[in-house]
């Protein structure tokens, strides 16, 4: 029995060494070590072995089983090394790859999200309002009564008496203030409409409005908030400038300029040789606006700002004409 076992082991080890492919090695494994294989057969045969020899024989058989198993693993590793090195055509890595189709978020929404995320970090949250607004929310409540000359600069689309396409996102200020008491810290992205259509004006465009109302909010904080926004969005080297302006719903009012992103303030066509780009309008919320909202303007102060996303997107990506933004040509959309 012992001799038989030794002979079997020797023969099996030779056969394993001779296996020349993964497949013939697997056949050998089944043949020797499988459930119906030789070793199983030998172990079953142990019952015929005299009682005294059984433990030694059993141990020997298990040793053979283990050494065969090790030999198979070793041979497998050798064969794999050979096939890794030699099998198949070498890949031509200069060939075009197989990529998944890429999707693109519209550039206006990319820029909007980037801007909003800066204000989210400061603690602002999103608010929204309807595109089609009442004249009250769009004008009167914002201190722009009927016949106010400021209405001249809001070329308005009318839907029916008292109803317009909003000309700015500012009406949402009023809707939010009617809904909640201070502190209010909101940013309002949205479509706005003006009767205007040429290379630099679109009848529909996109604005982001900001509003902060609390006790003791100051113009200095307006400057600080917008400075942070500019440094995050345009980079730390961007310079900013606040200069007086007029908006009916803020007092004091300002326009904010950013040093020209094209010429870095040296003067070029884009900035009309001034070195500055007008980026947004802002100011301290006018007491009449608070009065319409039912806020106590002695107790609360606030600031508001509004910026045109289209223009900022065009500046950032050097897009020459606003018509690209709404043409929906995939050759344009896929660039961003």
């Amino acid at each position: 029995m012992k001799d038989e076992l030794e002979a079997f082991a020797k023969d099996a080890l030779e056969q394993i060494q001779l296996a020349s492919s993964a497949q013939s090695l697997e056949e050998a494994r089944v043949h020797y070590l499988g459930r119906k294989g030789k070793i199983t057969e030998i172990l079953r045969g142990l019952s015929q072995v005299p009682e005294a020899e059984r433990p030694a024989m059993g141990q020997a058989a298990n040793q053979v089983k283990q050494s065969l198993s090790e030999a198979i693993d070793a041979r497998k590793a050798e064969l794999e090394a050979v096939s890794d090195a030699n099998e198949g055509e070498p890949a031509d890595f200069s060939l075009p790859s197989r990529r998944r189709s890429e999707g693109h978020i519209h550039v206006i929404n990319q820029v909007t999200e980037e801007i909003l995320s800066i204000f989210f970090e400061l603690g602002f949250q999103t608010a929204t309002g309807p595109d089609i607004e009442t004249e009250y929310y769009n004008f009167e409540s914002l201190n722009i009564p009927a016949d106010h000359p400021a209405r001249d600069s809001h070329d308005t689309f009318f839907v029916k008496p008292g109803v317009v396409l909003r000309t700015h996102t500012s009406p949402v200020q009023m809707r939010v203030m009617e809904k909640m008491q201070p502190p209010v810290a909101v940013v309002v992205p949205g479509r706005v409409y003006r009767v205007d259509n040429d290379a630099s004006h679109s009848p529909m465009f996109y604005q982001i409005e900001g509003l902060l109302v609390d006790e003791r909010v100051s113009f200095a904080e307006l400057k600080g908030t917008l400075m942070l926004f500019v440094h995050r969005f345009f980079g730390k080297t961007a310079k900013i400038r606040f200069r007086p302006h007029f908006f009916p719903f803020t007092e004091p009012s300002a326009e904010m300029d950013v040093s020209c992103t094209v010429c870095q303030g040296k003067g070029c066509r884009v900035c009309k040789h001034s070195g500055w780009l007008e980026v947004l309008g802002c100011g301290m919320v006018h007491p009449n606006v608070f009065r319409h909202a039912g806020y106590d303007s002695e107790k609360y102060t606030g600031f508001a700002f509004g910026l045109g996303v289209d223009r900022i997107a065009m500046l950032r990506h050097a897009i020459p004409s606003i018509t690209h933004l709404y043409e929906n040509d995939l050759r344009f959309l896929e660039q961003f």
Partner: protein
Amino acid sequence: MKISLKWLKDYVDIDVTPEELAKQMTMLGLEIESIEQVGGDIDHIVVGQILSIEPHPDADKLVVCRTNAGREQPEQIVCGAKNMKVGDKVPTALLGATLPGGFKIERRKMRGIESCGMMCSARELGISEDHGGLMILDPDMTIGQDIKDALGIGDVVFEIEVIPNRGDWASMIGVARELAALYGKTCRIPALDLKESGEAASAVASVTIEANELCPRYIGRVLKNAKVEPSPQWLAERLIAAGQRPINNIVDITNYVLLETGHPLHAFDCEKLAGHQVVVRRASAGETINTLDGTLRSLQPEMLVIADAQRPQAVAGVMGGAESEVGEGTATILLESAVFHPISVRRTSRALGLITEASQHFQRGADPEMARYAIDRAAQLMQEIAGAEVLSGALDAYPTPAPVREVRLRYARCNQILGAEIAPDIQRQHLASLGFQAQGGDDTSVLFRIPSWRNDVTLEEDLVEEVARLFNYENIPTVLPHIQPSETVLAPQETRIRALRRFLAGEGLTELYNWTFSSPEAVQKAGLQDTCGDMVTLENPLSEKQATMRSSLIPGILANAAHNVRHGRSSMAVFEVGPVYLPEEGLPTQRQRLAILLAGSLEPKHWGRPQTPVGIFDLKGILETVFDFLGANVRFEAGTFGPMRPGQTAQLLASTTPVGWCGQVRANLLRGYDIESEIFLAEVELDLLLGREKAGRTFSAIPGFPPVLRDLAILVDRNVPAGEILKAAQQAGGPLLREADIFDIYIGKQVDANKKSIALSFVFQSETQTLTDSIIQKQTENIQKRLQKDFGATLR
């Protein structure tokens, strides 16, 4: 408004460069549109003296001159003018000179005679409209001197944009006043030295205001024997610098005073006014007026007019009438300076479609004090320039003088609003420099009297802005606010829409962004007239194509597909998220929708394997991942929808609520868009799906026992929905059935014509034991029986 620097210096000393001045004006709120160097394009033109004039041998209309321009040799110049004589000094353009407008002077032959330069008229130099011949210069001028220096025509003109609340800035004095405040200097307003003479004006004409609420003040002056002729050069030059064309001295003086003071004046021919009366009243029904622009206009009863005893002679604050226009034969002028109500002027001007210089000034609000200064200033100039006799006394109707306005400024409040530390005396000083007069106060506040020209200032905040402007916005500190987080979330759906956009882009779809306009034609073209024909209509659309607000995203997205197909694109996977508008009493309803459009293939082209064409199940798959993403349970149920192919269309239902459609677009509809490829399209109502809270998920145990796989092939009638079979199998399979799927569907020769074969695969798995054959057998039999009972399914 154009501001000439030379002219501005009449009123205030300016010691800075034009560039520096532009910056300072900007920081005061005077927005600079452009800076123009006047005379900057005049070069190589000098004072020359004509030495001889000979006839041209071959041209009757030309002469040959020799002109001393201060160089070694006189210049030979061929000239067509006739008004000069030997010894006259004239502007002489040398070789290489450029005239305004860019005309270059070169050596050339005129009818065979060489000409080496050009002698110029005033118009050729761009300094007046006078083209009556050469400009004859002062005989004392130095030969050879640069003409710009000789005439002093170098100037810088700032074009400023006047913001709507600062009407006072639309004048030289207004701008000068602002700069004087900035520099701490005085503003020199020209002193009046009017010499009245002759009879009393009131003996010649009368002024009556019948509509005092629309005209708080009306001043008339009567002038006699004015000589109407071209304006002197200094006056003409100033008007030209301001971008105006000189006409005659009387008209030019009213325009000059308007530029100087910002107050519009009007001159009537007093003889043409019936009864020599001025009546300020509302128009009567049916009245008309022939305005100065030669148009007959119908007047409405709410419009304010300046009438004589019989009829309107001017539309108040907008335009004068032709009948009483001042001309050559005018012997007596009635000069008007008035204050009209801004809203009344604005409404009238808009109703007549007549926006004039005067109406723009009046609708910003006029200064009643400046009204008096302006008329006296104009009368004085007419006296000096046109030799007019100014009759004694002004016809000044000012029944209710404007009340004194006062506003209190609290120093601490000012600093609190600005977030700055500006000392009380500095605050006071800034306001005083702008003409606000302190009426006494204490340590904490001061009461200011508001100057008559500042009708924009009514509140403390307005004073705060004035302090801030003079303090300079740049000097206010920059501080970050401490924002208290709010418990109220105002627009939770916005966050989800942003996430949905990113998700779809991650799925390989590109976002479109359309104008939200539409039109009945666009809706019809998209086959939506039955479902989306009811739209919000605009009263003043830009064009027929944008006559309405969109009621569906489909017309837009199909037009986008057409645009891209036209530019050679065959594969597209695009989406749009945005609002549609549905008419309603009051404000329309606004709904967020999602549209998805697929065409061609979802895979990029590749050399290694062919592209799989996109199909309806790709669209269904994308929609399902969207619904999973949103946590919504949406069914697809066969249906019919305008733009889509029958049999290839499904309605989307969230339980029983319709939330949209998906399907393949009809080929005969696509023909209208010149699209020949297959288009798969869906539109989904997002509001309902976004409104749902995504269900929280809880952990389920990961099975520790091996799965068992079984297949089952059955035959059923062709019209049985495969999804129903799958659903029934899932129910019948009991808790051990982990997964069920369809892996093959066969219709063809090997089965009956009205049958289809469906191959199902199942995965059974238990959480507590290894499954035996007999257990599995029982489960598959249950499934089999259920399918037989429900669908008449037989084993294949």
